[in-house]
C-alpha cells in the first residue's frame, strides 16, 4: 500500500532575531551566510502515515509540531528533506482561517470551503451536513463576528471535516468546543478514517491522542525523539517533559518555592524506572500485573536510615496510591558517603486503562527534610484492563440467583 504521507529527513530552519529579512538571497537562491543566527524548528524528521491510519504528533510548546503541519500543507517550504503527499488534503491549522467577521455564517461556509479546496458544487451538496454538524442553524445569516467562540470553532471544524480529504491535518482544535462537540469531532474523525482518510493530529491533549491515534510521534526541540504506539508515545512525552523539568528544577522551584529549598541532595536519586517480573524495563503495563519501581540512589554523605516514598497519581493529580518505607514498617539501611544502592519497590497494579504518573522521594528518618524528590519521575500506561471507568479494578463479579418474591 502506498503511504498517504511519506516524510524523509525533513528539516526547517528559521532565522532568529529582529533584523530585517534579507530579500536578495531569495532571488539568487544561494546558501545563506553561515554566520547567521538560526534555529532549527524541525530537524531530520522521518515518518509515514498510511491511508486510514492516525498519527498523533505530541510534544511541548515550540517542539516543531505546528511547523511540521505547515510543511505538510505547503504553507512553508522545507529547508531540506522530502515530503510525498498522495491525495487531497485538508489542513485544520487554525479554525476558521479566512473567515471574514462581517460576513454571515452562510457566506463564510462557501468562502472557507473553497479556501480549503472544495468545489462550489461540493459545498452545496454538503451544506446542510456542515450546518447541522456545527449546530448553528439559526445563526446562519448572522455575521460571524457575533458568534460565540465555540460557534466559530464548531463551524470552522465542521467545514474542514466535510472536505472529504484523503489526508486530514488537525492542530489543537479539540481543545475548543464543549464536551458534546468533542465527542462529535472524534466520531467524525473515526468515520473519515474508516473511509481511508489518513489523519495527523497535533495535540497537547494526551487523552485525545490516545483515543484517536494508533501511533504517536514525540517531538522535542525540533527532533523526533520517539515513534511508536500512541500509548508508548504518551509516556515518552511525559518523560521528555520530566527531563526538561528536572534540568530546570534547581533554578525554578516547583511547589511554592519553599519545598525546593528543603532538598539537600545528601542523597540523590540517579535513576527511576519501571521493570516487569522478567526484569525488562517497561512503560506500558498490563493491568493487574506485578511491577518493580527501581530507584538507583547514591549518597554524598553518611545518612541514617532514610525514608523512601512513592506516589502514583492520575495526570489530573488524583492520588491513586502513596506510601513510604516508614508506613510499611520497612527497615532501611544506613547509607555511607559514596555508596550507591538499588532499591526495588514491588507493586501490584490492578488499575484501569489510562496514564499514570509516579513520583518518588527520599527523606531523612525524622521526616524533617527531603534529600531528593522527583515529581512525576515517570509515567506509565495501563493497558488491557477490564472495561470500567475510574482508577482501580475492583475485580467485579456479577451473579444472578432467582429468589422468592420479597414481601
Amino acid at each position: 500500500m502506498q503511504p498517504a504521507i511519506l516524510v524523509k529527513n525533513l528539516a526547517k530552519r528559521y532565522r532568529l532575531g529582529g533584523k530585517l529579512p534579507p530579500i536578495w538571497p531569495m532571488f539568487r537562491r544561494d546558501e545563506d551566510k553561515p554566520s547567521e543566527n538560526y534555529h532549527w524548528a524541525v530537524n531530520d524528521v522521518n515518518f509515514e502515515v498510511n491511508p486510514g491510519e492516525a498519527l498523533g504528533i505530541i510534544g511541548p510548546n515550540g517542539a516543531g509540531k505546528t511547523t511540521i503541519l505547515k510543511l505538510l500543507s505547503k504553507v512553508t517550504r522545507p529547508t531540506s528533506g522530502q515530503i510525498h503527499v498522495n491525495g487531497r488534503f485538508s489542513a485544520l491549522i487554525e479554525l476558521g482561517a479566512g473567515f471574514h467577521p462581517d460576513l454571515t455564517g452562510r457566506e463564510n461556509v462557501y468562502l472557507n470551503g473553497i479556501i480549503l479546496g472544495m468545489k462550489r458544487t461540493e459545498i452545496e451538496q454538503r451544506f446542510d451536513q456542515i450546518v447541522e454538524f456545527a449546530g448553528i442553524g439559526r445563526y446562519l445569516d448572522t455575521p460571524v463576528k457575533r458568534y460565540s467562540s465555540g460557534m466559530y470553532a464548531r463551524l470552522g471544524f465542521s467545514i474542514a471535516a466535510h472536505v472529504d480529504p484523503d489526508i486530514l491535518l488537525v492542530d489543537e482544535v479539540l481543545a475548543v468546543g464543549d464536551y458534546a462537540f468533542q465527542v462529535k469531532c472524534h466520531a467524525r474523525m473515526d468515520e473519515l478514517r474508516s473511509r481511508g482518510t489518513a489523519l495527523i493530529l497535533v495535540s497537547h491533549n494526551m487523552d485525545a491522542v490516545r483515543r484517536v491515534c494508533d501511533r504517536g510521534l514525540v517531538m522535542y526541540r525540533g527532533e523526533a525523539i520517539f515513534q511508536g504506539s500512541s500509548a508508548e508515545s504518551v509516556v515518552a512525552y511525559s518523560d521528555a517533559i520530566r527531563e526538561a523539568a528536572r534540568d530546570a528544577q534547581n533554578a525554578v522551584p516547583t511547589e511554592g518555592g519553599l519545598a525546593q529549598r528543603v532538598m539537600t541532595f545528601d542523597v540523590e536519586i540517579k535513576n527511576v524506572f519501571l521493570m516487569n517480573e522478567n526484569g525488562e524495563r517497561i512503560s506500558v503495563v498490563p493491568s493487574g500485573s506485578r511491577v518493580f519501581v527501581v530507584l538507583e540512589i547514591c549518597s554524598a554523605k553518611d545518612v541514617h536510615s532514610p525514608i523512601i516514598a512513592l506516589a502514583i497519581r492520575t495526570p489530573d493529580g488524583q492520588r491513586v496510591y502513596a506510601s513510604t518505607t516508614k508506613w510499611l514498617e520497612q527497615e532501611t539501611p544506613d547509607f555511607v558517603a559514596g555508596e550507591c544502592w538499588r532499591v526495588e519497590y514491588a507493586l501490584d497494579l490492578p488499575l484501569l486503562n489510562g496514564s499514570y504518573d509516579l513520583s518518588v522521594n527520599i527523606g531523612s528518618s525524622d521526616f524533617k527534610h527531603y534529600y531528593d524528590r522527583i515529581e512525576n519521575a515517570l509515567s506509565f500506561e495501563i493497558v488491557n484492563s477490564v472495561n470500567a471507568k475510574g482508577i482501580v479494578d475492583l475485580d467485579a463479579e456479577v451473579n444472578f440467583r432467582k429468589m422468592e418474591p420479597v414481601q
Partner: protein
Amino acid sequence: MTITDRAYAKAAPRVNIWTARELLWAWTTRTIRARYKQSILGGLWAIIQPAARAVILTIIFTRFIQIDTGNTPYIVFSYVAMVPWMFFSSALTDMVESLVHNMNLVTKIFFPREILPVAALLARFLDFAIAAVLLVVLMLLYRLPVLTVSLVYLPIVFLLQFALTLGLGLAGAAINVFYRDISHLFTFAIQILFYATPIIYPVSRVPESYQALYFLNPMAAIIEAYRSILLYQTPPDITLYASIPVVLLILILGYWIFKRLEAFFADVI
C-alpha cells in the same frame, strides 16, 4: 507529489490561479461584500469619491485658476481621467497591502498566493464600473456623443491599464511582505504620479522638452488615450503604443518577482 527544496517551485504551480478560479471569485466577492457591509451608502461610495474630487477640481480650475479644456466642460474633462485613475490608485494600494493584511491566511493555509492581490484588483474593478456609469450620465447631460466608433480602442487601453496595475501590484505586494516601506513608498509614489499624469490639466500644457520624459509614465499615455477615445472620438496617440513594451516589461518583471518570493511569504511576513 513531492516537495523538496528544489522541486518546491515546480510542485506549486500544480495549483495555479486558473485551477483556483473559484477561490479567486470567492475572495473577490468577499472583498467587495466586506467593503460595503455595515455601510448605508454601500456601492455609492465608488461614485461619490471620484465625483467629489472632480467637483472640487472643477471649482478650483474654472473659478480660481483657469485651465483651457477647449469645448469640453472641465468636469467631464477631469472626471473621465479621474475614474481610471481612481481604479489604478485604489487597486494598487489594496494590492500592495493584500498579502500583509491577510497574514493569518498566508501563514496558515496553502493556496495560490496570487489570489490575494489579483482579487484586490478585481474587487476595485466593480468600483470602476460603477463610477463609469456616472461618466456616461455626465456625457449625456452635456450632450457629448457616447456611442462612437473610437470605442473599439477602449478594450486595448483598459487591458493596458489592467496589465500595468497587475505588474506593479504583484511586485509591490511581494516586496511589502519583506519590507513594509513598500506600502509607504507606493502611497507616496501614487501621489506624485497624480501630478505627473494629465488628470487635472490637458497634456498640451506639458512643455515640449518635457514630453519624452513625461510619457515614460505609462499612466500618462493611458489616461490621455481614454480622453481621446471618449471625449475627442479619435484613436489613441502613438504614445500609447510606445508604452506597450514598458507595460509588458513591468508585468513580466512583477510576476517574476512575485513568483520568486512566494515561497518565503509565510516565513518572513
